[in-house]
């Protein structure tokens, strides 16, 4: 039960303004060749203030409220010896399928799952069907989880010491990159049917991630997916990223993924790097 409000079950958040994603393209933009660039207009011009006006130095991060909740979540996780993964991807890349299989492979390891979707509790139900602890957050119009929602959900979960906490973010390759949830690692799932250039089109998510899982490799031969090109584009955007080729359906690469998780968890516990059994194919 949640210590904040005492409620249980699905947590619903509504975007306060009711217009969570307005994209006005009416502002300044430059038009070159065959595409438009937005957000490159000149900065606004300041008007001199009247005599009674004063200038206040603020020097505060715009997301400082979220970052404060994230830091609090991180302290709770640290105190429990838990390792939290924020799974980010476009819709349908296979996050829930991957999680269900991961839960089976982790066997007796303590774990819990926070599921984020705009609507439905389908994914939490799929997780619970494996026997694992899961809570659904519905963000309503919101297109990402924020740290306050996750802290609230953590209060509902009876998280055991030394657990894995898996947070499945809302399927969206853009917004979740900016919102720290207090996780130890963002893991980006990219399925091989999405197109080799996705890392270049949505660089922020892959910059923010420690690991990219190239999922649905069983489909690669059917859709002429060039796995080497996916990896080259991922490393171009983030030279430090770990990459694993996985099929959550056939099980290919799942052992390496579970090794990766265990090694990162152990690193957090020991406070030093840990070698892992299977490589992540990193070249440098």
């Amino acid at each position, binding site marked *: 039960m949640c210590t904040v409000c005492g409620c249980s079950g699905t947590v619903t958040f509504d975007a306060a303004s009711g217009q969570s994603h307005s994209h006005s393209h009416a502002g300044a933009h430059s038009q070159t060749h065959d595409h438009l660039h937005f957000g490159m207009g000149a900065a606004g011009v300041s008007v001199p203030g*009247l005599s009674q006006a004063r200038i206040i130095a603020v020097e505060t991060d715009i997301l*400082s409220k979220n970052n404060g909740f994230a830091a609090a979540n991180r302290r709770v996780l640290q105190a429990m010896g838990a390792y939290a993964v924020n799974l980010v991807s476009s819709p349908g890349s296979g996050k829930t399928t991957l999680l269900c299989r991961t839960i089976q492979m982790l066997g007796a390891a303590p774990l819990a799952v926070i599921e984020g979707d705009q609507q439905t509790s389908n994914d939490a139900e799929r997780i619970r069907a494996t026997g694992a602890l899961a809570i659904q957050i519905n963000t309503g119009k919101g297109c990402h989880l924020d740290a306050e929602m996750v802290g609230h959900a953590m209060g509902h979960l009876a998280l055991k010491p030394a657990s894995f906490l898996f947070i499945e973010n809302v399927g969206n390759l*853009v917004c979740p990159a900016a919102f720290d949830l207090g996780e130890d690692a963002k893991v980006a799932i990219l399925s091989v049917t999405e197109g080799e250039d996705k890392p270049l089109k949505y660089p922020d998510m892959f910059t923010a991630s420690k690991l990219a899982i190239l999922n649905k490799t069983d489909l690669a031969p059917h859709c002429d997916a060039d796995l080497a090109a996916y990896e080259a584009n991922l490393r171009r955007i983030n030279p430090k990223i770990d990459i694993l080729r996985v099929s959550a359906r056939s099980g290919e690469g799942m052992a390496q993924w579970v090794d990766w998780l265990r090694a990162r968890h152990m690193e957090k516990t020991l406070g030093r790097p840990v070698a892992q059994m299977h490589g992540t194919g990193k070249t440098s």
Partner: protein
Amino acid sequence: MHEVSICEGILGVIEDQARTLGFTAVRRITLEIGAFSGVEQAALRFGFDAVMRGSVAEGALLEIIDLPGRARCYDCEDVVDIMDRLACCPRCGGERLLPEGGGEMRIKDMEVV
């Protein structure tokens, strides 16, 4: 990016400051936005007017200072300024660049009464 969330973040900071410093209106607010922050400025300006309506910052002038993107080149190991996330290293032409600055989304200062 999620510009309305960003504007709600700005409003949250303004309201905190209004409570502690006791001002009643914001005339101008200056933000510092990095080239790699993912913020679409046209959408931010649109969202700003909508979100500030009815608050102490209704009608405030929004001023945005663009901060450059800084990245480490994994070929020549130098730290370089680039404005575009997919730009090559201006020193060696390398393509493997990891941002080290330019993700800023900060409120710098405000003019209040």
